[in-house]
């Protein structure tokens, strides 16, 4: 096949002459008859016996596929995968999806029409086509009308084809061999190499973009505005510190000043909370969160952290502590004692007194009197 003849092509001066020449040439049945024209010529489809284009059906199918795809995805995204009510409408209200369905329909249909025509129907690009390197090509894309008899299956009878075309009035007859030393092949190689090189460059650039993009700070000037940052210097104050001590005499909201200095002074403080179920419940919650980790769930001073903990936490069941008035226990929570830090900042006043109540409950539970069992 490769060293045979692809076609014999001749030229005509007008569409009229071309159209008249087609029937007699076709009648000889020498091979496939194809015309090459600078523009679409009316009536040539019938003369060449071309079948109706299936494109319209393909486009219809693609358009319907587009509509269904758009509807399906919008339904799935808004009603199934991420159901969210917008404007009080039902999750699947198809009316709102119509604009996008229309656009996707047009998109699918258009690309099927355009790309289907070029790539599927016309099998373009075909850079190795013998006509492209012929003398005739410049004429047929300009102002001449080419008629070709092309080999179909078996080898073409070149002389008979020439005669047929000449008889029909064609001039500038040309025999088109199959491409062997393909200039277009080099061209294709170069194109492929070009594409490969571009891909390498683009891929390398993309690698760095993806690598760097997420760590580059966006240009958000909201972050640059003058403001106080924790643990940072600030030009707002003369001493240059961002964090400042409160002004003398400042009372923290919700924290009354505690002016008692010693445990003895605190002995006189009375527990302001009633001994009720909710208060005891609160005391239990707070105790278990903050105190039990050292003093133990029962207040026995055997904590969960004993092994890792150097100091020995106080045993709240000891007689000394059982004898403490409420105020002394409260004072220890406020100020801390020995290794125990102050819990003034962690607990509100109410929580502290509730804990005191709960400690009493624990002590009573571990040292029950006879009447408790009756």
């Amino acid at each position, binding site marked *: 096949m490769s060293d045979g003849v692809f076609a014999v092509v001749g030229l005509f001066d007008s569409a009229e002459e071309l159209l008249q020449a087609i029937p007699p040439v076709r009648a000889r049945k020498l091979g496939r008859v194809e015309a090459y024209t600078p523009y679409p*010529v009316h009536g040539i489809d019938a003369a060449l016996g071309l079948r109706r284009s299936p494109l319209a059906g393909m486009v219809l199918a693609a358009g319907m596929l587009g509509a269904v795809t758009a509807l399906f995805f919008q339904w799935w995204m808004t009603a199934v995968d991420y159901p969210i009510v917008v404007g009080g409408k039902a999750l699947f209200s198809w009316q709102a999806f119509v604009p996008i369905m229309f656009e996707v329909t047009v998109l699918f249909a258009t690309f099927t029409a355009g790309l289907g025509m070029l790539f599927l129907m*016309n099998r373009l690009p075909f850079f190795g086509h013998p006509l492209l390197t012929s003398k005739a090509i410049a004429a047929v894309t300009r102002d001449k009308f080419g008629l070709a008899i092309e080999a179909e299956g078996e080898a073409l009878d070149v002389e008979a084809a020439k005669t047929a075309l000449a008889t029909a009035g064609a001039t500038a007859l040309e025999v088109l061999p199959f491409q062997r030393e393909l200039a277009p092949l080099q061209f294709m190689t170069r194109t492929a190499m070009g594409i490969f090189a571009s891909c390498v460059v683009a891929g390398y650039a993309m690698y760095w973009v993806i690598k760097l993009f997420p760590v580059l700070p966006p240009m958000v000037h909201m972050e640059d505005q003058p403001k106080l940052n924790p643990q940072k210097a600030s030009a707002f104050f003369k001493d240059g510190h961002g964090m400042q001590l409160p002004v003398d005499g400042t009372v923290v909201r919700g924290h009354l000043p505690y002016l008692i200095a010693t445990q003895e002074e605190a002995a006189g403080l009375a527990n302001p909370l009633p001994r009720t179920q909710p208060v005891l419940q609160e005391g239990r919650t707070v105790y278990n969160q903050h105190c039990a980790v050292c003093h133990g769930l029962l207040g026995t001073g055997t904590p969960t952290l004993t092994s890792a903990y150097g100091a020995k936490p106080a045993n709240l069941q000891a007689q000394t502590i059982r004898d403490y008035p409420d105020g002394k226990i409260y004072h220890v929570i406020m100020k801390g004692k020995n290794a125990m830090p102050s819990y003034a900042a962690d607990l509100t006043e109410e929580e502290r007194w509730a804990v005191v109540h709960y400690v009493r409950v624990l002590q009573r539970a571990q040292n029950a009197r006879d009447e408790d069992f009756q």
Partner: protein
Amino acid sequence: MQSEAVLLPEALQPPTLFEGPVTLGSLDDQVLQYPARKPPAAWYLAFAFTSMLMTLGFSLIGYTFYMGIGVWGNTSPVFWAFDIINFVFWVGIGHAGTLISAILLLFRSRWRNAIARYAEAMTIFAVMCAAIFPLIHVGRPWVAFWLLPYPNQRGIWTNFRSPLMWDVFAVSTYFSVSLMFWYLGLVPDLASLRDRTQSGIRRFFYTVFSLSWRGAASHWQQYEKAYLLLAGLATGLVLSVHSVVSFDFAVSLVPGWHMTIFPPYFVTGAIFAGFAMVVMVLVVVRETMDLKNLITAYHLDVMNKIILAMSCLMGYAYLMEGFTAWYSMDQYLHHIFLQYISGTYGWAGWLTISCNVLIPQLLWSRRVRRSYIGMLFVSLGVTVGMWLERFVIIVVSLHQDYLPSSWHIYKPTLVDFGILFGTFGLFFTLVLLFARVLPVIATSEMKVILPGAQPAHGRGRHE
């Protein structure tokens, strides 16, 4: 054809689409010579000017990215201003191209063949200009891809009930389809250019992009079918794109936006503005590229008639807007409508009406329709008027919202103007480049309608 023509009165005679003798070969020589030629000094001058404007625009966009959109005039309650005005304006400009390439093809208006290529190119360039604005007005353009429904770690999807989402789909589809349409039309011309060019980088590109087109009759058959289908699809698109853009406004509850007239009103305005732009560019192209025998006075005349018709429709739309405001008995709508024609921005409303409705009435005169000065004056007026119309619709409707304490007089900044002029720079830079490297007239389409190009009737199947 000949015998019919003789019987017709002069006014109904088929128009002259060519002046002087034009043959298949001379057409190619005339149109396809430009890509191979060194452009004149004036081209370089124009290119330097437009690319300077473009650079200015992009620099200011960069400045906006760096500083944030606080450098624009937009402030509460006018959150949409130049960004959206320019977007609507540029998308509208594009519509003329699609109308010419699609609707007029279906109507078999033979005069469209001469101007279709340029108008389609302008569509693509205009949509490129338009697409800039939604991207930059989001404030954080580096996450603009959130507009697309793609599977993400956040596990959420876009809101498909939002007209802004419809807009994303409409504009991107519009751009893709226009590009497809334009490229398919270019393929046969690129093949002609390929065969005229002997060697070099030009030939390489023409070869690649003409996809080895060789004008086979079997290919032409599929090609014409595809082209017809594309025209049918794009026709729906012309009507839909600006309708969807108008939904951005009409679906909201802002007085002055919430009107059913908006979709046809916007589509009309788009075609109107687009034709004005096409006329302005074509006049220059026709003169400088010496195409007077192909783009005849008749072509300009017909386009000016379309501008006139659209202008009358715009006048009707403005009247209907006023009627709707009055008939609604809604005090907010009354108030906003009065702001269109009186108040701080009253001048903009009156200028809009003058430019879009009054000045184009000059086109009733045949002399104006065929004089460069006349049509350039009208087209320039329409371009300014249509831009101002969007200003009135967007800014004036927003600047006095339901809460009088937040009323605000909007003032654009220099950055706003710079970016607007920058997009004009981008548009005309692309137009100039197009004239330099690609055929400005679709030669294969022109060859179809050349006198004597088609075999006489009665032979073969006529489609």
